[in-house]
């Protein structure tokens, strides 16, 4: 690979101080370090050796953990398409093809728009291009509906990267999770394209089968608040004739139902979670506590039972909507989550609790996990503040005893 190194070394002077493209040094640098791990060595004083981990590897580990969700997303987008147009017998190739032509452009647009912003900011601010967006750029497409206009993906991504991240100083400084900010922005700015009947790609040339309403498990739950029907019965009844058992508990777990592109399968999220736990990149404490918080709150709702949605068995909350995806990939974002170990438990439990609260009490926003995580992102520093204060108090008390 010497020729590649030589090629890079030969153009390098142009980007260094005094070179003709001096301004674009950090763009060059990003590509150089992507190809070659740099040759920097440790300083005279301080540690003489360093751990082999770096930010790129850390972020890539998260992306690797997202691969099951991405692959499933491609298949399921196609599968739901053929289900909805009444051709469930369509071949696997056809399904994957539909999935690919819907999902890949969204992924591509997300990366192109986000990285463009990153490069511009790195150039203006004169700092290295941060790796954080590698993960955000994959998360954003996976929480979009399959039929989202591409320009909205670009707009949401650009908004999130600038407002949620760069305005605060870049990766590591942001308060809100970048991917969720993108989704929340689109949700409130263009509700028509990200809520209601958007979760299955039909295509203008096709007709949906009779009985297809575009409902999601959460919208059925939300309707139950007003019509008072038993949610489990409604879930089981949906899809009769064209997709039996679409919203059965097991199907919700496996994820073969319409929803955000890559967030429907609890199973795939759990595979990703295992990857994150084994590699130690994602905090298992947060994931476990989000599930525990949601389940506990679900049980509490059962006890109160003020409306039909509250009577939904608590375990259903864990498989509906994006709770699993949010818990595994969004809540564990180390920058926007609580940073102390005790804080992580509190943070996770409150996300779970809030998610269910939003679901059952606020039918206007059927998906609670997005807002719950963003809300707790804001409160994470406060949780940490009290945990840190406890540490300080222990030290003070020790002095006075």
């Amino acid at each position, binding site marked *: 690979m010497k020729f590649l*190194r030589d090629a890079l070394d030969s153009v390098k002077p142009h980007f260094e101080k005094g070179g003709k493209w001096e301004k674009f040094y950090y763009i060059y640098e990003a590509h150089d370090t992507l190809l070659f791990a740099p040759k920097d060595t440790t*300083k*005279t004083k301080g540690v*003489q050796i360093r*751990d*082999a981990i*770096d930010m790129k*590897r850390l972020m890539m580990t998260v992306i*690797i953990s997202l691969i099951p969700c991405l692959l499933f997303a491609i298949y399921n987008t196609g599968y739901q398409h053929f289900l909805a147009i009444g051709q469930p017998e369509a071949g696997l190739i056809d399904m994957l093809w539909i999935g690919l032509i819907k999902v890949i452009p969204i992924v591509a647009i997300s990366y192109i728009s986000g990285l463009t912003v990153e490069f511009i900011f790195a150039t203006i601010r004169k700092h290295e291009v941060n790796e954080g967006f590698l993960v955000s750029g994959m998360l954003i497409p996976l929480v979009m509906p399959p039929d989202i206009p591409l320009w909205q993906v670009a707009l949401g991504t650009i908004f999130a990267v600038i407002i949620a991240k760069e305005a605060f100083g870049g990766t590591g400084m942001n308060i809100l999770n970048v991917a969720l900010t993108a989704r929340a922005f689109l949700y409130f700015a263009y509700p028509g394209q990200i809520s209601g009947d958007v979760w299955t790609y039909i295509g203008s040339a096709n007709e949906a089968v009779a009985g297809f309403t575009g409902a999601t498990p959460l919208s059925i739950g939300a309707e139950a608040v007003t019509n008072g029907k038993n949610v489990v019965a409604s879930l089981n009844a949906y899809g009769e004739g064209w997709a039996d058992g679409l919203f059965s508990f097991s199907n919700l777990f496996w994820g073969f139902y319409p929803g955000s592109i890559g967030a429907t399968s609890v199973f795939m999220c759990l595979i990703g979670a295992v990857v994150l736990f084994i590699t130690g990149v994602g905090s298992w404490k947060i994931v476990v506590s989000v599930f525990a918080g949601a389940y506990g709150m679900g049980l509490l709702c059962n006890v109160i039972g003020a409306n039909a949605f509250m009577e939904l068995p608590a375990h259903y909350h864990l498989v509906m909507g994006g709770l699993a995806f949010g818990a595994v990939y969004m809540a564990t974002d180390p920058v926007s989550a609580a940073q102390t170990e005790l804080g992580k438990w509190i943070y996770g439990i409150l996300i779970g609790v809030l998610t269910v609260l939003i679901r059952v009490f606020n039918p206007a926003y059927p998906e609670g996990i997005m807002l719950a995580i963003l809300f707790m992102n804001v409160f994470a520093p406060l949780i940490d503040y009290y945990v840190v204060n406890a540490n300080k108090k222990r*030290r003070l008390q020790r002095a006075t005893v």
Partner: protein
Amino acid sequence: MSKFIRLKKGFNINLAGKAEKKIAEVEQPGTFAYKPTSFQGILRPKLMVAEGDNVKAGTPILFDKKNEEVKHVAPVSGEVVEIRRGEKRKLLEVVILADKKIEYEKFDSHSVSDLTGLSKEQVIETMLKSGVWPNLIQRPYGIIADHNVTPKAIFISAFDSNPLAPDYQLLFKGQDQYFQAGIDLLKKLTPGAIHLNVDANAEVSQVFAHTKNVELNKFSGPHPAGNVGVQIHHLDPINKGEVVWTINPYGVIQIGKLFLEGIYDASKVIAVTGSEVKQPQYYKTYLGASVKRFLEGNVNGGKLRYISGNVLTGEKISTEGHLGFFDHMVTVIPEGDHYELFGWIKPSPNKFSFQRAFGLLSYLNPNKEYVIDTNTKGQPRAFVQTGVFERVLPMDILPTHLIKAILAEDFDDMEALGIYEVIEEDLALCEFVDVSKHDVQEIVRTGLDLMQYS
């Protein structure tokens, strides 16, 4: 009141090149150096010798203008051949070309029974003028102890848990008598206890096993269990306004020898270690020895880094460099100034990491000895990962928050988060494991300087 403390947090870095447990013979190096840079807080060193002067072992060669009573003395007899200065004429080294036979300055010698009769003031005065005083380090700040202050306790770590660290059993073999005398003298300097902390997982060395007048505590666990700062935290933590002293067993022995024999004896055993040393083993020499004689012809080819001390807290020196005041080892590892194609993602069983992110497999093979070069393996970034520093610091301290408080120069927070309890070495592992490649030790020193001087 002896305690047994089991530590769970921490991390052992298993490096190749451990020293074989034998003391090899080699001709003594020509030059020895005294490095004021080994100490924190010597701001205005004043030289008492010039190039060409002849000195004996124990002849004062410099002092700190802010702390005139504490004399720093020559470790060996011979001629001062070079006074090395760095930027802004900062004094780096006083280099002495050693005599073939070391001559010693004469100090008063005492019999063991006489020692009890010495007053605290006599002891301090002799220690100050004879050059053994700088062995005493004060916490907070990790600076040379102030003789006008009475510490609440003195702590001695009797083992080193750093990577490739020398075995103290070999280092201090046969010095029991001097060690005990040193302890008895130190006992006069504090109303509190002298804590002697040994490794619970190894046989207690003869030197330490029968020591009287101390509280013998046992520590078990991975590095940094051997760091005296960690031990203090678990035995008798430093609160605001309190002062404790720490000393290496080497210093205790020097003190004992000074009073019993009347000489400043700077002889020491050092370990020559590291993956690039052909024959890693121990050698007997003197404080501040040039490493050249031990490594010439004894290292592998390629670009190498010579380190005075261990790989976590040591300092890079040249091939003819000298050991620092507190160092009992020299480590030689490969330099890492090379590119690696897709090095940031390529999986490899040879990459060593505390973590287990994709492709880092060293956790599967904890007993393997690794060769680690000096490459930074990544570039500096903002803080992203959380919860990792906490796993390598066995103290009730929140390292990330402490570091951020230092960076923000928030004095109240630094104090409240425990800056008085740490010095650089205690957070060295945090610096090693940091995915964002911060210079944690440098940051800690910045914080200590802020607390001390402003």
